[in-house]
């Protein structure tokens, strides 16, 4: 006996029972299904009990919470992407935990590979620490930008790295922060974000060389006894040459960063 036969059989039995209760007369109303009889409660759904005062109150509170949440949610953000009033993708995108974690790891990698800097910290040549750390300080941030591609990424990396730098060399921490801020402003003005690879290349290339003029200005304002400041004053052409070399090394690093991230993307490891 299949399921359909089972249903038919039970309907038949129910109709017979109703007929017996009505004094042997077949209930036409029930059979026709036009009107309800006394026994039609069998066909009805179980009525829902009325909500208690406490339940109603709870429901109201949860509704209010949902409304508040809806109010708090930015209507311009859909699927994690922020849109402007015109409906275009906005320059400033919200950062997710994934982005912050990746940028922090990139910052840690840049920091750990720059550990050679103290070895040249006391050599009186202007820009030598930047030259030594140029490659790693451009490769890793460029990889970070190629993955995250959100305005403010360079500044986040700079904040995370400079917090550590402030403990060791406050001047470097301050100059890193200022230069990162300027790079972000330049990027927004020229490229409007990191959607293009060239934007990642330019920002990644400028992170280290940009600290040079700010470090000079910092020394001019606060630390005229600095050996680098004196070195720049004693042999300005050497300082210019080193600055050009820093720019070249950082351009190479940013290029390598782009190549590496393309390879990783091709391998399927780097997902947006």
């Amino acid at each position: 006996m299949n399921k359909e036969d089972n249903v038919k059989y039970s309907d038949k039995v129910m109709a017979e029972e109703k007929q017996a209760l009505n004094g042997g007369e077949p209930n036409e109303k029930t059979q026709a299904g036009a009107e309800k009889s006394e026994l039609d409660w069998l066909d009805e759904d179980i009525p829902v009990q009325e909500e208690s005062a406490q339940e109603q109150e709870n429901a109201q509170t949860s509704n209010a919470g949902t409304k508040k949440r809806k109010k708090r949610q930015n209507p311009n953000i859909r699927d994690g992407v922020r849109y402007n009033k015109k409906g275009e993708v906005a320059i400033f995108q919200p950062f997710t935990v994934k982005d912050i974690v990746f940028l922090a790891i990139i910052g840690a990698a840049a920091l750990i590979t720059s550990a050679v800097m103290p070895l040249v910290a006391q050599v009186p040549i202007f820009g030598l620490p930047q030259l030594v750390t140029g490659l790693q300080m451009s490769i890793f941030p460029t990889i970070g930008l190629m993955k995250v591609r959100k305005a403010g990424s360079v500044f986040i990396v700079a904040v995370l790295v400079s917090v550590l730098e402030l403990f060791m060399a406050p001047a470097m921490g301050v100059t890193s922060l200022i230069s990162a801020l300027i790079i972000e402003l330049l990027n927004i003005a020229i490229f409007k974000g990191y959607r293009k690879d060239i934007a990642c290349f330019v920002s990644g290339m400028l992170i280290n060389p940009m600290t040079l003029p700010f470090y000079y200005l910092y020394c001019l304002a606060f630390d005229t006894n600095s050996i680098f400041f004196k070195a720049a004053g004693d042999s300005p052409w050497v300082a210019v040459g080193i600055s050009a070399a820093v720019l070249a090394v950082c351009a190479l690093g940013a290029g390598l960063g782009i190549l590496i991230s393309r390879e990783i993307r091709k391998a399927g490891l780097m997902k947006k």
Partner: protein
Amino acid sequence: MTDRFHAKNPVYPLFGFFAAILIFAAGLATAKHTDGLWYLLAVWLWFLLFGYWRSCLVIIPFAAVFSGIFAGITYASSGELPATLAAVSRCVAVCLAVLPGLSLPAVKLTRNLSQLHVPRAVTLGMMIVLSFAPLLGREIKRIREAMRTRGAGSLLNPKVFYRALLVPFAARLVNISDTLSLSVETRGFCTGKAAYTVYHPVKLTVRDVLFLLGITAGSVAIIVWCFI
């Protein structure tokens, strides 16, 4: 890696941070004066007094080698004893400024900043930077070991450097970040304005105030002594 340098009871993290800036500034400003070295010695003793004995002892050989190298370079280039002493002072000042950071567990600094309502993105990122720097150092070592096993060749060869070191390292970074972000998200971390609790709040004590007062007084005194 730096766990063994952590002080048992470090000072209030933000005070340690200010102390590092003061020591660095005063040490560099007075590097040319011989009295500057006495100031640095006093700072070292002050750290020792406040329970930083482990990092204080660890820093001695490092500072000796570090300042010895630069003293040698400076003496070789200038041939002047005062310039050499100034180089030594600068190196020792940098080493002492590193002490509060070296002795501070990363989680304490993060808790302190969380208490001060610093954005979650910064505190979370900072904790990752502080705790992952040693781990990434180990990753580089592993990749170099793998290179040796495969007989990849010298790192001075740009092709080997790119193909056998940079690309695997970057791939490893992406993998670590994906796993870590998943782990962080499952633990309820988010970048939004969600309320959170600091389980072990860092409290300011009289000891911390005394520590910072001592460093500030010493730094101001040495600058006044040397320049006024």
